[in-house]
């Protein structure tokens, strides 16, 4: 079903080790020799039990975690970009224009109204404020966030409400690569359906997505392929159809 095109993202032999200096230099090898490719319009879902390093992979792709070994490449029409050696100052424009991220938790300035939290990725690109606001409101409405909450800071919202603000903020920028860290974890069925539809639309736009989904149902509906991260922390990709029973 997936049209095989040139991959947009390729990961080769990725390693991640944490060294905890506070615990006598304890070394935690959380990932070893992970490889994958991801094409435009494809949604690759990371599978494996909790704590196996799914979020760690997303964070390395987003620059929040350093890469201990291996190669991360983005393939642009005009050449490839090595993420593992990207200087810190380059990450900011890369995140603004290329790599979007929906984290599990919303982390924003305490006082900012929800609608402005959602608008921010567009404003960062210099978009017109009224157009950004209109787009943000459309997304919040679609995600069934009550209108009375739009002008309030999300700090006091319920987990599900915060998550929907977070999803809107993550999708509004239509980044070519989107990292999804359990975006549907605290949503009810109706809102899960909305997020699934948004993911399908993003695929149709050609967005490459790498995601973690706690929910089997969502995972089956959005995944083109599954990438199991086994207990030995090394993983190979396989087609989703061939192993639908893969459990988290």
């Amino acid at each position, binding site marked *: 079903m997936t049209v095989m095109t040139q991959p947009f993202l390729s990961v080769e032999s990725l390693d991640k080790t*944490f060294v905890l200096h506070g615990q006598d230099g304890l070394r935690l090898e959380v990932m070893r020799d992970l490889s994958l490719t991801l094409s435009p319009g494809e949604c690759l879902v990371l599978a494996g039990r909790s704590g196996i390093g799914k979020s760690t992979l997303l964070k390395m792709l987003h*620059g929040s975690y350093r890469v201990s070994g291996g190669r991360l490449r983005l393939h*642009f029409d005009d*050449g490839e*970009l090595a993420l593992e050696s990207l200087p*810190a*100052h380059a990450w900011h424009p890369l995140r603004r224009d290329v790599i979007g991220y929906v984290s599990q938790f919303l982390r924003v300035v305490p006082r900012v109204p929800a609608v402005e939290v959602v608008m921010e990725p567009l404003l960062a690109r210099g978009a017109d404020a009224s157009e950004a606001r209109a787009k943000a409101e459309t997304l919040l409405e679609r995600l069934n966030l009550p209108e009375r909450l739009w002008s309030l800071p999300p700090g006091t919202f319920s987990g599900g409400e915060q998550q929907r603000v977070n999803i809107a903020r993550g999708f509004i920028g239509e980044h070519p690569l989107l990292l999804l860290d359990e975006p549907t974890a605290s949503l009810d069925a109706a809102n899960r359906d909305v997020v699934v539809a948004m993911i399908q639309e993003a695929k149709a736009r050609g967005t490459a997505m790498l995601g973690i989904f706690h929910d089997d149902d969502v995972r089956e509906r959005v995944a083109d392929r599954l990438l199991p991260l086994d207990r030995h922390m090394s993983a190979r990709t396989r087609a989703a159809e061939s192993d639908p029973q893969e459990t988290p």
Partner: protein
Amino acid sequence: MKCPQLDRPTLLEARDLTRLYGPGKGCEGIDFALRSGEVLGIVGESGSGKSTLLRTLCGMEAPDAGRVVYHAHEGELDLYAIGEARRRALLRMEWGLVHQNPRDGLRLGVSAGANIGERLMALGERHYGQLRAAGQDWMGRVELDPGRIDDAPQHFSGGMQQRLQIARTLVTRPRLVFMDEPTGGLDVSVQARLLDMLRTLVRELGLSVVLVTHDLAVARLLADRLMVMRRGRVVEAGLTDQILDDPQHAYTQLLVSSVLTP
């Protein structure tokens, strides 16, 4: 798609910069480049040398060794080789400095409007009506009541004073702004409001900022990149969330793990 432009022009550089008052007191061997439009946070505990570094960067204190290089429109300027007149003109026209204590950056006895207008007047603005309009506009931008334009800031709260200081600094649209613990000494609720305002202004004006703070939460919300200082040296530098979420150096790990979270 094509790779977007990731390399922004360098605005300010420290090259092997050293300013020591005694062994381990001050800053030593500092190298970095601040890119245009970037917020660089300098974090560390008291006595780590971050304030000394800031003073050396912004022209207030000559280094013992090394250079501060500013990339002006007309070319590279070695901050301590260009002479006091040019240096002070730079601070007045292209740079801004936000002090931790607004009292150090404001004239408490003169009106809010005159405080905001001073830098414009120093640049030669001689129209009272336009100065006043700029004052009112900026009071609105920093969420101060423009109706209080003729009130002296000595009667303002600490948070209001800090917002006025920011307006006074940014009114001339500086390319580069130095901020020394801009939210220090403020109540928590006031801090949040100020942080949001600073983020918005940085984005809208395309400011490049060097921010000194001991508060990692402030650093996370404002800074794109961080430098962690200890005993006068930079122990670790990188993307803000990488430093805070995956610190490499033993000291950074200790610092991050010592933060209280409510």
